[in-house]
């Protein structure tokens, strides 16, 4: 079967006649999920997320439902929800589309999640460089507030929650969850040691906090609407849902492609959807998940054990696009930013470019990372 996109998160993006205003969103069924969610019990909603098995889309891949489960609800301290819109991983450019073109999807996701975990306040920490995105979000939140989807008594219920959008100031480490929490609180963005500073127990202002990526939060209304069971059946059962792959580098058609997890291979993505290498060149290497993940070299083969006990040999183009498969081949899914390099690329130069970034962005707290 040829590779097909399945646009769930990106269902509105690049659609003819779509604009980011709230009217357009509501006309197309927007905020209906929020309206029904606020009348459902919170425990049920959290259970749905857990059942869906959706993993965090930020790069670490920790199951979202489990993260919500670890939240310390007994301490009496207020709970905070933070949306991590600090998209700084080199090679990643997919959250941006949602923020710029479909901000209300994110806002609905944030409000649904905030209700489900009973957050006192929600924050969206957006990358400082996304100046227009910040303005768009502020505008969208104001629109939503006017219609009662944000702020006091959401959709006429007893629950109130404000969203506060904070801008970063150009720092990669602010995308790390404890670094983000420090930065949001006004301090230097030093990641904190876990234990004891698990965000679910001691997060923002030492209160229980959930930090989720933009795409993860956009899944929340979908899970509430379709049910966790149904979502868990999309794609590879070990890694349900769809992934948005932002392909950049030396391909014919770089861009963003949303694909059901495991439904296609890397080769199909690069050759079919992206049109293959540029004229007269051949692929040399690909980094599948944002620059922090291990590189895959064309020509390499991987022996991967299958669930039925056999072992299969995969070339790079045979690797299915989901988390467990990529991990089995020594890399990882990460943030889904695919960087493609062809045979004109000098690997040492590419490496030097990457390393300069990491050296520059290290916070300097821990000795090995700072000096190494």
């Amino acid at each position: 079967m040829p590779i097909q996109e399945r646009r769930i998160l990106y269902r509105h993006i690049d659609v003819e006649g779509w604009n980011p205003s709230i009217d357009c969103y509501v006309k197309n069924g927007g905020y209906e999920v929020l309206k029904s969610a606020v009348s459902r019990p919170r425990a049920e909603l959290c259970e749905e997320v857990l059942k869906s098995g959706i993993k965090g889309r930020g790069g670490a891949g920790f199951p979202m439902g489990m993260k919500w489960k670890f939240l310390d609800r007994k301490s009496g301290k207020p709970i905070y929800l933070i949306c991590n819109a600090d998209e700084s991983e080199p090679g990643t450019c997919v959250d941006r589309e949602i923020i710029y073109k479909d901000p209300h999807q994110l806002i609905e996701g944030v409000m649904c999640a905030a209700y489900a975990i009973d957050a006192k306040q929600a924050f969206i920490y957006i990358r400082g460089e996304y100046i227009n995105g910040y303005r768009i979000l502020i505008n969208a939140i104001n629109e939503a507030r006017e219609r009662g989807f944000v702020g006091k008594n959401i959709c006429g219920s007893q629950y109130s929650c404000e969203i506060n959008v904070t801008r970063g100031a150009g720092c990669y480490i602010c995308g790390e969850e404890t670094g983000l929490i420090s930065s949001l609180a006004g301090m230097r963005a030093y990641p904190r040691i876990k234990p004891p500073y698990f965000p679910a127990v001691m997060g923002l202002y030492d209160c229980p906090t959930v930090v989720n990526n933009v795409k993860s939060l956009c899944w929340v209304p979908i899970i509430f609407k379709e049910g966790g069971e149904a979502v868990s059946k999309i794609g590879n059962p070990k890694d349900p849902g769809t992934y948005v792959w932002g392909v950049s580098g030396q391909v014919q058609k770089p861009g963003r492609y949303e694909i059901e997890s495991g439904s296609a291979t890397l080769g199909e993505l690069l050759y079919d959807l992206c049109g293959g290498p540029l004229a007269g060149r051949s692929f040399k290497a690909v980094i599948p998940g944002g620059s922090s993940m291990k590189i895959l070299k064309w020509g390499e083969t991987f022996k991967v054990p299958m669930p039925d006990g056999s072992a299969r040999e995969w070339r790079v183009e045979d690797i299915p696009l989901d988390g467990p498969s990529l991990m089995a081949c020594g890399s990882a899914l990460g943030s889904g930013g695919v960087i493609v390099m062809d045979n004109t690329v000098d690997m040492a130069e590419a490496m030097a470019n990457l390393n300069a970034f990491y050296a520059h962005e290290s916070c300097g707290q821990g000795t090995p990372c700072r000096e190494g």
Partner: protein
Amino acid sequence: MWISRITKRICAGGGRLEDPDLLLSIADGICGRTVCAHGEGMAWPVQSNVSKFKDEYLAKIRRQLAGEGASRLDNNSYRLI
């Protein structure tokens, strides 16, 4: 930082034959010992890149040691930290 300085030196024409192994050794020394995952994020590309493309690195360094090829000092897409 150290890794960045070595790779910059290699690109600027001053690579040594022991540099790829040194890079791998440093990357191994970072993994698992850091406060947060930024260390691994820095070390994994180095580990995979240098080990999978080691021949390319060594060939480049050998060319530099033999005096062939211009050094890419004009490429300022990265900065010395």
